[in-house]
Protein backbone atom coordinates (compact mmCIF):
# COMPACT_ATOMS: atom_id res chain seq x y z
CA UNK A 1 0.00 0.00 0.00
CA UNK A 2 2.79 2.38 1.04
CA UNK A 3 4.79 1.28 -2.00
CA UNK A 4 1.91 2.12 -4.28
CA UNK A 5 1.48 5.53 -2.64
CA UNK A 6 5.14 6.34 -3.06
CA UNK A 7 4.94 5.15 -6.69
CA UNK A 8 2.09 7.59 -7.31
CA UNK A 9 4.04 10.37 -5.57
CA UNK A 10 7.12 9.63 -7.68
CA UNK A 11 5.00 9.54 -10.84
CA UNK A 12 3.32 12.88 -10.10
CA UNK A 13 6.71 14.43 -9.25
CA UNK A 14 8.05 13.15 -12.58
CA UNK A 15 4.95 14.45 -14.37
CA UNK A 16 5.54 17.90 -12.84
CA UNK A 17 9.20 17.78 -13.93
CA UNK A 18 8.17 16.68 -17.43
CA UNK A 19 5.62 19.52 -17.72
CA UNK A 20 8.22 22.05 -16.52
CA UNK A 21 10.92 20.78 -18.88
CA UNK A 22 10.04 23.10 -21.81
CA UNK A 23 10.61 26.03 -19.43
CA UNK A 24 14.30 25.17 -19.14
CA UNK A 25 15.32 26.99 -22.32
CA UNK A 26 13.88 29.53 -24.74
CA UNK A 27 14.35 27.13 -27.63
CA UNK A 28 12.46 24.31 -25.90
CA UNK A 29 9.63 26.66 -24.95
CA UNK A 30 9.35 27.88 -28.53
CA UNK A 31 9.41 24.30 -29.80
CA UNK A 32 6.65 23.30 -27.35
CA UNK A 33 4.56 26.31 -28.45
CA UNK A 34 4.91 25.51 -32.15
CA UNK A 35 4.21 21.80 -31.56
CA UNK A 36 1.11 22.65 -29.51
CA UNK A 37 -0.27 24.96 -32.21
CA UNK A 38 0.45 22.48 -34.98
CA UNK A 39 -1.12 19.63 -33.00
CA UNK A 40 -4.24 21.69 -32.35
CA UNK A 41 -4.57 22.53 -36.05
CA UNK A 42 -4.08 18.89 -37.08
CA UNK A 43 -6.50 17.60 -34.42
CA UNK A 44 -9.21 20.08 -35.34
CA UNK A 45 -8.79 19.57 -39.09
CA UNK A 46 -8.93 15.81 -38.61
CA UNK A 47 -12.38 16.01 -36.97
CA UNK A 48 -13.74 16.31 -40.51
CA UNK A 49 -10.93 15.32 -42.92
CA UNK A 50 -13.01 15.42 -46.07
CA UNK A 51 -14.17 18.99 -45.41
CA UNK A 52 -10.63 20.11 -44.47
CA UNK A 53 -9.16 18.58 -47.63
CA UNK A 54 -11.79 20.24 -49.82
CA UNK A 55 -11.31 23.67 -48.25
CA UNK A 56 -7.50 23.52 -48.31
CA UNK A 57 -7.20 22.06 -51.80
CA UNK A 58 -9.42 24.85 -53.10
CA UNK A 59 -7.36 27.57 -51.42
CA UNK A 60 -4.64 26.82 -48.90
CA UNK A 61 -4.98 30.31 -47.40
CA UNK A 62 -8.41 29.24 -46.11
CA UNK A 63 -6.62 27.31 -43.33
CA UNK A 64 -7.81 29.90 -40.79
CA UNK A 65 -11.40 29.52 -41.97
CA UNK A 66 -11.19 25.72 -41.73
CA UNK A 67 -9.68 25.84 -38.22
CA UNK A 68 -12.24 28.41 -37.01
CA UNK A 69 -15.19 26.52 -38.52
CA UNK A 70 -14.09 23.16 -37.13
CA UNK A 71 -13.29 24.65 -33.71
CA UNK A 72 -16.88 25.85 -33.58
CA UNK A 73 -18.11 22.49 -34.86
CA UNK A 74 -16.12 20.68 -32.14
CA UNK A 75 -17.62 22.96 -29.48
CA UNK A 76 -21.16 22.51 -30.80
CA UNK A 77 -20.77 18.72 -31.04
CA UNK A 78 -18.87 17.99 -27.85
CA UNK A 79 -19.24 21.11 -25.69
CA UNK A 80 -16.61 22.93 -23.64
CA UNK A 81 -15.45 19.61 -22.20
CA UNK A 82 -14.68 18.14 -25.63
CA UNK A 83 -12.97 21.32 -26.83
CA UNK A 84 -11.04 21.58 -23.54
CA UNK A 85 -9.86 17.99 -23.92
CA UNK A 86 -8.64 18.62 -27.48
CA UNK A 87 -6.81 21.77 -26.31
CA UNK A 88 -5.28 19.96 -23.30
CA UNK A 89 -4.24 17.14 -25.60
CA UNK A 90 -2.48 19.61 -27.91
CA UNK A 91 -0.65 21.21 -24.95
CA UNK A 92 0.49 17.83 -23.59
CA UNK A 93 1.62 16.77 -27.05
CA UNK A 94 3.71 19.96 -27.29
CA UNK A 95 5.44 19.09 -24.02
CA UNK A 96 5.78 15.41 -24.93
CA UNK A 97 7.40 16.29 -28.25
CA UNK A 98 10.09 18.42 -26.59
CA UNK A 99 10.77 15.58 -24.11
CA UNK A 100 10.88 13.05 -26.92
CA UNK A 101 13.40 15.08 -28.91
CA UNK A 102 15.69 15.20 -25.88
CA UNK A 103 15.18 11.48 -25.21
CA UNK A 104 15.89 10.55 -28.82
CA UNK A 105 19.10 12.64 -28.78
CA UNK A 106 20.16 10.91 -25.56
CA UNK A 107 19.14 7.50 -26.86
CA UNK A 108 21.22 8.01 -29.96
CA UNK A 109 24.22 8.59 -27.72
CA UNK A 110 23.37 5.77 -25.33
CA UNK A 111 21.36 2.78 -26.42
CA UNK A 112 18.65 2.11 -28.92
CA UNK A 113 16.51 0.45 -26.26
CA UNK A 114 15.37 3.84 -24.93
CA UNK A 115 13.80 4.61 -28.30
CA UNK A 116 11.77 1.41 -28.01
CA UNK A 117 10.53 2.78 -24.68
CA UNK A 118 9.52 6.07 -26.28
CA UNK A 119 7.55 4.65 -29.19
CA UNK A 120 4.55 3.43 -27.14
CA UNK A 121 4.29 6.92 -25.64
CA UNK A 122 4.24 8.50 -29.08
CA UNK A 123 1.72 6.00 -30.37
CA UNK A 124 -0.37 6.32 -27.23
CA UNK A 125 -2.04 9.25 -28.87
CA UNK A 126 -5.49 7.73 -28.75
CA UNK A 127 -8.10 9.37 -30.91
CA UNK A 128 -8.22 12.79 -29.35
CA UNK A 129 -10.27 14.32 -32.09
CA UNK A 130 -12.44 11.49 -33.30
CA UNK A 131 -15.54 13.00 -34.77
CA UNK A 132 -18.23 11.87 -37.15
CA UNK A 133 -16.04 12.99 -40.05
CA UNK A 134 -13.01 10.91 -39.14
CA UNK A 135 -15.14 7.88 -38.35
CA UNK A 136 -17.02 8.41 -41.61
CA UNK A 137 -13.68 8.45 -43.44
CA UNK A 138 -12.93 5.07 -41.91
CA UNK A 139 -16.26 3.78 -43.19
CA UNK A 140 -18.19 3.81 -39.89
CA UNK A 141 -21.32 5.76 -40.71
CA UNK A 142 -23.01 5.70 -37.32
CA UNK A 143 -20.02 4.82 -35.13
CA UNK A 144 -20.13 8.29 -33.60
CA UNK A 145 -23.60 7.54 -32.28
CA UNK A 146 -22.16 4.61 -30.34
CA UNK A 147 -19.23 6.43 -28.74
CA UNK A 148 -20.01 7.25 -25.11
CA UNK A 149 -20.23 10.97 -24.17
CA UNK A 150 -19.89 12.13 -27.80
CA UNK A 151 -16.37 10.65 -27.91
CA UNK A 152 -15.14 12.62 -24.86
CA UNK A 153 -14.25 9.39 -23.06
CA UNK A 154 -11.95 8.46 -25.94
CA UNK A 155 -10.33 11.90 -25.84
CA UNK A 156 -9.83 11.59 -22.09
CA UNK A 157 -8.21 8.20 -22.70
CA UNK A 158 -5.69 9.84 -25.07
CA UNK A 159 -4.85 12.47 -22.45
CA UNK A 160 -4.41 9.89 -19.69
CA UNK A 161 -2.03 7.90 -21.90
CA UNK A 162 0.01 11.02 -22.69
CA UNK A 163 0.11 12.02 -19.01
CA UNK A 164 1.22 8.48 -18.14
CA UNK A 165 3.99 8.70 -20.74
CA UNK A 166 5.15 12.08 -19.38
CA UNK A 167 5.02 10.80 -15.79
CA UNK A 168 7.20 7.86 -16.80
CA UNK A 169 9.66 10.13 -18.59
CA UNK A 170 10.02 12.90 -16.00
CA UNK A 171 12.76 15.39 -16.79
CA UNK A 172 14.24 13.75 -19.90
CA UNK A 173 17.74 14.96 -18.99
CA UNK A 174 17.80 12.74 -15.93
CA UNK A 175 17.96 8.97 -16.05
CA UNK A 176 15.00 7.43 -14.24
CA UNK A 177 16.14 3.83 -14.51
Amino acid at each position, binding site marked *: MNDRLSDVRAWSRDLRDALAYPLTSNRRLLMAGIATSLTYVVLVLSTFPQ*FSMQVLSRDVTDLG*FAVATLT*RETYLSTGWLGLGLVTAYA*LLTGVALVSTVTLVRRARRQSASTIVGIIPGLLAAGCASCGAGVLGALGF*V*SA*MAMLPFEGNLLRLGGIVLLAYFLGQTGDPRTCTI
Partner: protein
Amino acid sequence: MDEEDKSVTRRALLAGSVTLAFGGGVAYLATDSGGSEDDYRPASFYTSDKTTDFGNGVDLTGRPIVGERDAPLDIYYWTDYLCPFCKEFETKTLPEVGRNYLDTGDARLVMLGYPNIGEYSEPAAVWGRCVWAQVAESDPMAFWNWNGAAFDAQVAGGNDWADEETFREITEQTSGVNLNSVEECRASRGEAIRRNLDADVDVALSAGIQGTPGFVIYNRESGAAGKLVGAHPYENFADALDQVREA
Protein backbone atom coordinates in the same frame (compact mmCIF):
# COMPACT_ATOMS: atom_id res chain seq x y z
CA MET B 1 17.09 33.66 -6.67
CA ASP B 2 19.85 32.90 -9.19
CA GLU B 3 19.79 33.85 -12.88
CA GLU B 4 18.62 30.39 -14.05
CA ASP B 5 15.66 30.43 -11.61
CA LYS B 6 14.71 33.91 -12.81
CA SER B 7 14.78 32.71 -16.43
CA VAL B 8 12.56 29.73 -15.61
CA THR B 9 10.07 32.01 -13.80
CA ARG B 10 10.07 34.39 -16.76
CA ARG B 11 9.44 31.52 -19.19
CA ALA B 12 6.74 30.10 -16.90
CA LEU B 13 4.95 33.46 -16.92
CA LEU B 14 5.31 33.68 -20.70
CA ALA B 15 4.08 30.10 -21.18
CA GLY B 16 1.14 30.75 -18.83
CA SER B 17 0.14 33.93 -20.68
CA VAL B 18 0.46 32.29 -24.10
CA THR B 19 -1.55 29.26 -22.89
CA LEU B 20 -4.27 31.59 -21.59
CA ALA B 21 -4.28 33.48 -24.89
CA PHE B 22 -4.42 30.18 -26.79
CA GLY B 23 -7.38 28.97 -24.69
CA GLY B 24 -9.08 32.35 -25.09
CA GLY B 25 -8.59 32.22 -28.86
CA VAL B 26 -10.08 28.73 -29.03
CA ALA B 27 -13.05 29.85 -26.89
CA TYR B 28 -13.56 32.90 -29.13
CA LEU B 29 -13.57 30.76 -32.29
CA ALA B 30 -15.96 28.30 -30.63
CA THR B 31 -18.57 30.90 -29.75
CA ASP B 32 -18.25 33.14 -32.80
CA SER B 33 -21.20 32.19 -34.97
CA GLY B 34 -19.58 33.86 -37.99
CA GLY B 35 -22.50 35.71 -39.53
CA SER B 36 -26.17 36.16 -39.01
CA GLU B 37 -28.96 33.68 -39.51
CA ASP B 38 -31.31 34.36 -42.38
CA ASP B 39 -34.99 33.51 -42.48
CA TYR B 40 -35.42 32.04 -45.97
CA ARG B 41 -38.68 30.65 -47.29
CA PRO B 42 -38.43 28.81 -50.60
CA ALA B 43 -40.66 29.89 -53.48
CA SER B 44 -41.38 26.32 -54.50
CA PHE B 45 -41.41 23.09 -52.53
CA TYR B 46 -42.75 19.80 -53.87
CA THR B 47 -42.77 16.01 -53.87
CA SER B 48 -42.01 13.57 -56.66
CA ASP B 49 -42.15 9.82 -57.26
CA LYS B 50 -39.44 9.77 -59.91
CA THR B 51 -35.93 8.31 -59.74
CA THR B 52 -33.03 10.34 -61.14
CA ASP B 53 -30.11 8.95 -63.15
CA PHE B 54 -27.33 9.87 -60.73
CA GLY B 55 -25.22 6.84 -59.75
CA ASN B 56 -27.48 3.82 -59.43
CA GLY B 57 -30.45 6.17 -59.23
CA VAL B 58 -31.74 8.49 -56.52
CA ASP B 59 -35.32 7.65 -55.56
CA LEU B 60 -37.14 10.94 -54.91
CA THR B 61 -40.24 9.31 -53.40
CA GLY B 62 -40.99 10.68 -49.96
CA ARG B 63 -38.03 13.10 -50.07
CA PRO B 64 -38.70 16.84 -49.77
CA ILE B 65 -37.57 18.80 -52.84
CA VAL B 66 -37.00 22.58 -52.86
CA GLY B 67 -37.05 24.39 -56.21
CA GLU B 68 -38.61 24.02 -59.64
CA ARG B 69 -39.36 20.60 -61.14
CA ASP B 70 -37.55 21.35 -64.41
CA ALA B 71 -34.44 22.94 -62.86
CA PRO B 72 -31.44 21.52 -64.78
CA LEU B 73 -29.26 20.99 -61.71
CA ASP B 74 -29.94 18.63 -58.81
CA ILE B 75 -28.37 19.29 -55.42
CA TYR B 76 -28.55 16.09 -53.37
CA TYR B 77 -28.26 17.19 -49.76
CA TRP B 78 -27.57 14.56 -47.06
CA THR B 79 -28.48 15.82 -43.64
CA ASP B 80 -28.96 14.85 -39.98
CA TYR B 81 -31.07 16.84 -37.49
CA LEU B 82 -28.37 16.28 -34.85
CA CYS B 83 -25.59 17.70 -37.02
CA PRO B 84 -24.44 21.25 -36.06
CA PHE B 85 -22.79 21.74 -39.48
CA CYS B 86 -26.15 21.04 -41.17
CA LYS B 87 -27.75 23.76 -39.06
CA GLU B 88 -24.95 26.16 -40.11
CA PHE B 89 -25.67 25.32 -43.74
CA GLU B 90 -29.44 25.69 -43.43
CA THR B 91 -29.34 28.98 -41.55
CA LYS B 92 -26.40 30.72 -43.22
CA THR B 93 -25.69 29.32 -46.67
CA LEU B 94 -28.96 27.81 -47.88
CA PRO B 95 -30.83 31.16 -47.91
CA GLU B 96 -28.33 32.59 -50.43
CA VAL B 97 -28.23 29.36 -52.46
CA GLY B 98 -32.03 29.39 -52.35
CA ARG B 99 -32.49 32.93 -53.62
CA ASN B 100 -29.76 32.71 -56.28
CA TYR B 101 -30.22 29.16 -57.60
CA LEU B 102 -33.39 27.46 -56.29
CA ASP B 103 -35.97 30.25 -56.61
CA THR B 104 -34.55 31.21 -60.01
CA GLY B 105 -35.18 27.74 -61.45
CA ASP B 106 -31.48 26.94 -61.89
CA ALA B 107 -31.30 24.12 -59.35
CA ARG B 108 -33.47 22.02 -57.06
CA LEU B 109 -32.46 20.71 -53.64
CA VAL B 110 -33.36 17.13 -52.75
CA MET B 111 -33.28 16.52 -48.99
CA LEU B 112 -31.86 13.08 -48.21
CA GLY B 113 -31.16 11.40 -44.88
CA TYR B 114 -27.74 10.45 -43.48
CA PRO B 115 -28.30 9.68 -39.79
CA ASN B 116 -24.78 9.50 -38.33
CA ILE B 117 -24.28 11.82 -35.38
CA GLY B 118 -26.16 10.42 -32.41
CA GLU B 119 -28.49 7.71 -31.18
CA TYR B 120 -31.55 9.78 -32.02
CA SER B 121 -30.37 10.69 -35.55
CA GLU B 122 -32.41 7.96 -37.20
CA PRO B 123 -35.64 8.46 -35.19
CA ALA B 124 -35.31 12.21 -35.88
CA ALA B 125 -35.04 11.50 -39.62
CA VAL B 126 -38.14 9.27 -39.40
CA TRP B 127 -40.05 12.12 -37.68
CA GLY B 128 -39.04 14.39 -40.58
CA ARG B 129 -40.16 11.96 -43.27
CA CYS B 130 -43.51 11.40 -41.54
CA VAL B 131 -44.12 15.13 -41.23
CA TRP B 132 -43.30 15.51 -44.94
CA ALA B 133 -45.60 12.61 -45.87
CA GLN B 134 -48.45 14.32 -44.08
CA VAL B 135 -48.06 17.84 -45.52
CA ALA B 136 -46.23 17.35 -48.86
CA GLU B 137 -49.33 17.74 -51.02
CA SER B 138 -51.42 20.09 -48.93
CA ASP B 139 -49.05 22.44 -47.12
CA PRO B 140 -45.35 21.82 -47.90
CA MET B 141 -44.29 25.01 -46.09
CA ALA B 142 -45.46 23.39 -42.84
CA PHE B 143 -42.57 20.93 -43.30
CA TRP B 144 -40.16 23.83 -43.85
CA ASN B 145 -41.32 25.35 -40.55
CA TRP B 146 -41.00 21.97 -38.77
CA ASN B 147 -37.53 21.46 -40.28
CA GLY B 148 -36.40 24.91 -39.08
CA ALA B 149 -37.81 24.27 -35.58
CA ALA B 150 -35.98 20.92 -35.39
CA PHE B 151 -32.64 22.59 -36.17
CA ASP B 152 -33.44 25.44 -33.78
CA ALA B 153 -33.80 22.88 -30.99
CA GLN B 154 -30.10 21.94 -31.25
CA VAL B 155 -28.12 22.70 -28.11
CA ALA B 156 -24.33 23.01 -28.03
CA GLY B 157 -22.37 20.28 -26.31
CA GLY B 158 -23.90 16.94 -27.13
CA ASN B 159 -27.03 15.24 -28.37
CA ASP B 160 -29.00 14.90 -25.16
CA TRP B 161 -31.53 17.46 -26.37
CA ALA B 162 -32.67 15.05 -29.12
CA ASP B 163 -35.34 12.74 -27.78
CA GLU B 164 -38.94 11.64 -28.23
CA GLU B 165 -40.25 14.45 -26.07
CA THR B 166 -38.46 17.25 -27.96
CA PHE B 167 -39.58 16.05 -31.39
CA ARG B 168 -43.13 15.45 -30.17
CA GLU B 169 -43.22 19.01 -28.86
CA ILE B 170 -41.82 20.47 -32.10
CA THR B 171 -44.41 18.52 -34.10
CA GLU B 172 -47.26 19.55 -31.83
CA GLN B 173 -46.28 23.21 -32.01
CA THR B 174 -45.82 23.40 -35.78
CA SER B 175 -48.88 24.85 -37.36
CA GLY B 176 -50.38 22.66 -40.11
CA VAL B 177 -48.84 19.42 -38.76
CA ASN B 178 -51.03 16.89 -36.97
CA LEU B 179 -49.16 15.06 -34.22
CA ASN B 180 -51.51 12.05 -34.20
CA SER B 181 -51.08 11.46 -37.94
CA VAL B 182 -47.31 11.74 -37.62
CA GLU B 183 -47.29 9.29 -34.69
CA GLU B 184 -49.45 6.90 -36.71
CA CYS B 185 -46.98 7.15 -39.63
CA ARG B 186 -44.01 6.47 -37.31
CA ALA B 187 -45.71 3.34 -35.99
CA SER B 188 -46.98 1.95 -39.28
CA ARG B 189 -44.35 3.16 -41.78
CA GLY B 190 -41.27 3.49 -39.58
CA GLU B 191 -39.64 0.34 -40.93
CA ALA B 192 -40.18 1.31 -44.58
CA ILE B 193 -38.83 4.80 -43.92
CA ARG B 194 -35.73 3.37 -42.26
CA ARG B 195 -35.15 1.28 -45.41
CA ASN B 196 -35.47 4.48 -47.49
CA LEU B 197 -32.95 6.21 -45.23
CA ASP B 198 -30.57 3.27 -45.70
CA ALA B 199 -30.98 3.70 -49.45
CA ASP B 200 -30.09 7.41 -49.09
CA VAL B 201 -26.95 6.51 -47.12
CA ASP B 202 -25.99 3.92 -49.76
CA VAL B 203 -26.12 6.59 -52.48
CA ALA B 204 -24.03 8.92 -50.27
CA LEU B 205 -21.40 6.25 -49.64
CA SER B 206 -21.19 5.28 -53.29
CA ALA B 207 -20.67 8.98 -54.08
CA GLY B 208 -17.84 9.13 -51.52
CA ILE B 209 -19.70 11.33 -49.02
CA GLN B 210 -18.20 10.74 -45.57
CA GLY B 211 -20.16 13.02 -43.26
CA THR B 212 -22.90 15.59 -43.00
CA PRO B 213 -23.84 17.88 -44.54
CA GLY B 214 -22.87 16.20 -47.80
CA PHE B 215 -23.76 17.46 -51.26
CA VAL B 216 -23.62 16.17 -54.79
CA ILE B 217 -24.38 18.67 -57.52
CA TYR B 218 -25.62 16.84 -60.60
CA ASN B 219 -26.30 18.19 -64.08
CA ARG B 220 -29.19 16.03 -65.31
CA GLU B 221 -28.56 16.90 -68.94
CA SER B 222 -24.80 16.39 -69.23
CA GLY B 223 -24.41 13.88 -66.39
CA ALA B 224 -21.60 16.00 -64.84
CA ALA B 225 -21.40 15.93 -61.06
CA GLY B 226 -19.43 17.56 -58.26
CA LYS B 227 -19.15 16.85 -54.54
CA LEU B 228 -19.02 19.13 -51.49
CA VAL B 229 -18.81 18.00 -47.88
CA GLY B 230 -19.25 20.20 -44.81
CA ALA B 231 -20.49 23.73 -44.20
CA HIS B 232 -18.64 25.49 -47.01
CA PRO B 233 -19.14 29.22 -47.47
CA TYR B 234 -21.63 30.36 -50.10
CA GLU B 235 -18.86 31.23 -52.59
CA ASN B 236 -17.75 27.57 -52.71
CA PHE B 237 -21.32 26.46 -53.41
CA ALA B 238 -21.77 29.09 -56.10
CA ASP B 239 -18.46 28.07 -57.77
CA ALA B 240 -19.39 24.38 -57.65
CA LEU B 241 -22.90 25.02 -59.02
CA ASP B 242 -21.55 27.19 -61.84
CA GLN B 243 -18.88 24.64 -62.74
CA VAL B 244 -21.32 21.72 -62.90
CA ARG B 245 -23.79 23.82 -64.88
CA GLU B 246 -21.13 24.63 -67.49
CA ALA B 247 -19.74 21.07 -67.61
